[in-house]
């Protein structure tokens, strides 16, 4: 494992002879962004079409409780965070399907329940707050080699999933019954997509934090919508924006000494503003 990483580091020294990329922690941060940002943006494109930004936010905030649970139970908080995120995603999707309530109602109920549970645990356990800081704001520069490997595995898994399911997900997003009449298994697909989103969100939290994780999924996709007409263009523009923002954000945060996650999100927001202006300039308002 470690030897594989050091091989990658020496390769990066050759390819990126930049002063800010010299320390090993910077290399890990760069690798983490290269893996996580495009995965988040790619999942974000159908997520935006499904109007699931609020869902992604709820999963992000469930991580808060996941971490608290981990500390409480003496399990590594990363594991409980991912597991709890997957559980909440599954529960929301299931309850939504069974009750027929509107998505934002169901998500709103889960969102507050989960946060309340997290606060209850934290308030009972003194000294937990310090532990949570890294998760609230993200701590890209403190990412370990193992986490980088986990992120690479995640981005590979997301790529495979989207390769297999992307068409059906988009079709389901256009019209549920029409998609199902063409043989798309709606419920199974909805659950699998929710779980993939939960996996991406909980992983990306390490990079940009609970408060900003939704931005990593939603903003590049939203910016791509401003300028793309076709499905393929939208997908690749979102990924390009996420990569450019990730790399620029790391570099800028190094020179200006700002929080890395927040700096990355600011770059995605700048891309959104730019594409929105382009759209206006082309005279498209609706």
């Amino acid at each position, binding site marked *: 494992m470690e030897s594989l990483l050091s091989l990658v580091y020496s390769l990066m020294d050759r390819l990126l002879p930049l002063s800010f990329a010299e320390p090993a922690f910077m290399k890990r941060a760069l690798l983490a962004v290269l893996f996580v940002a495009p995965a988040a943006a790619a999942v974000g494109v159908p997520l935006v079409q499904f109007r699931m930004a609020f869902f992604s936010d709820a999963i992000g905030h469930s991580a808060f409780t996941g971490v608290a649970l981990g500390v409480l139970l003496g399990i590594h908080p990363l594991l409980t965070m991912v597991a709890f995120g997957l559980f909440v995603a599954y529960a929301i999707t299931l309850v939504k399907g069974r009750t027929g309530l509107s998505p934002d109602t169901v998500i709103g109920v889960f969102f507050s329940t989960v946060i309340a549970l997290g606060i209850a645990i934290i308030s009972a356990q003194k000294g937990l707050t310090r532990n949570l800081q890294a998760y609230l704001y993200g701590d890209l520069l403190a990412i370990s080699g193992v986490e980088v490997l986990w992120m690479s595995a995640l981005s590979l898994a997301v790529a495979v999933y989207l390769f297999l399911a992307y068409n059906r997900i988009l079709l389901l997003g256009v019209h549920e019954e029409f998609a*199902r009449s063409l043989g798309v298994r709606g419920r199974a697909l909805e659950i699998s997509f929710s779980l993939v989103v939960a996996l991406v969100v909980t992983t990306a939290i390490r990079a940009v934090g609970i408060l900003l994780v939704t931005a990593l999924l939603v903003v590049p996709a939203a910016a791509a919508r401003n300028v793309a007409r076709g499905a393929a263009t939208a997908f690749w523009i979102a990924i390009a924006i996420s990569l450019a923002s990730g790399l620029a954000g790391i570099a800028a945060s190094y020179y200006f000494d700002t929080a890395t996650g927040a700096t990355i999100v600011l770059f995605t927001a700048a891309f959104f503003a730019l594409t929105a202006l382009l759209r206006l300039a082309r005279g498209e308002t609706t």
Partner: protein
Amino acid sequence: MTSRLAPFHTLEIRDLSVRAGGREILSGIHADIRCGEVTALIGPNGAGKTTLLLAILGLVPYAGEIRFCRAEEHGKGTPRIGYVPQRIDLDRNAPMTVLDFYALSSQRFPVFLGRSRKSRADAEAALNRGGSGHLIDRPLGKLSGGELQRVLLALALRDNPDILLLDEPVSGVDASGEELFCDFLDQIHRESRFSLLLVSHDLSVVTRHADRVICLNRSIVCQGATTEVLTPETLCAMYGSGAHLFSHGPSDGHGHLHGEKNE
């Protein structure tokens, strides 16, 4: 063609009922869809018309039986059902062209890797059939109601369905769009002879196109040949006294019927 049933039924619905949320939406439905015929499904709002289509598609749970029977000319196996849903609320800004939309269900590899040459050729052929080939590279969300209906119909017809289900195909479509759609439907129906089940509020469309009519209001009100069923009495029973019929006069050979629903 040897068949025990005459005329041949594509679809036999026996004692069908659908419940949702503790409420009976449909009950005691007995109906047949005949092979190659156009059957219109009419009834007031909330009568369960769309639910019946979804039951036929197997998309809602139901009690009772829906039997599919295949004419010999169509070969063995389960019949293919094409479906065009009621007016779709499209995401107007969705980055998706008509070709993208078509490719979603016609190619195995994801659309973000591009569209196969076969997808484009198939989409062109299907769209050209309905005179809407020029729409192929237009964004799906920017189509007019009539254009979208024709794109959806082209897609539903792609796999040569044995049964085609159309849910309010001309609602929200202007008069010229409606005429285009109906002409296209007539033409392809003559060519392919699929069984067509058409939900419509527009009685002029029904009288012009349907061989048989099923009147539905939670259960079957009546069914039979179009001319027998569409009487002022049945319409009055279904829609209330606001429904009326009038003829365009002797110069118009087939005498259109118009129904209007007054709340």
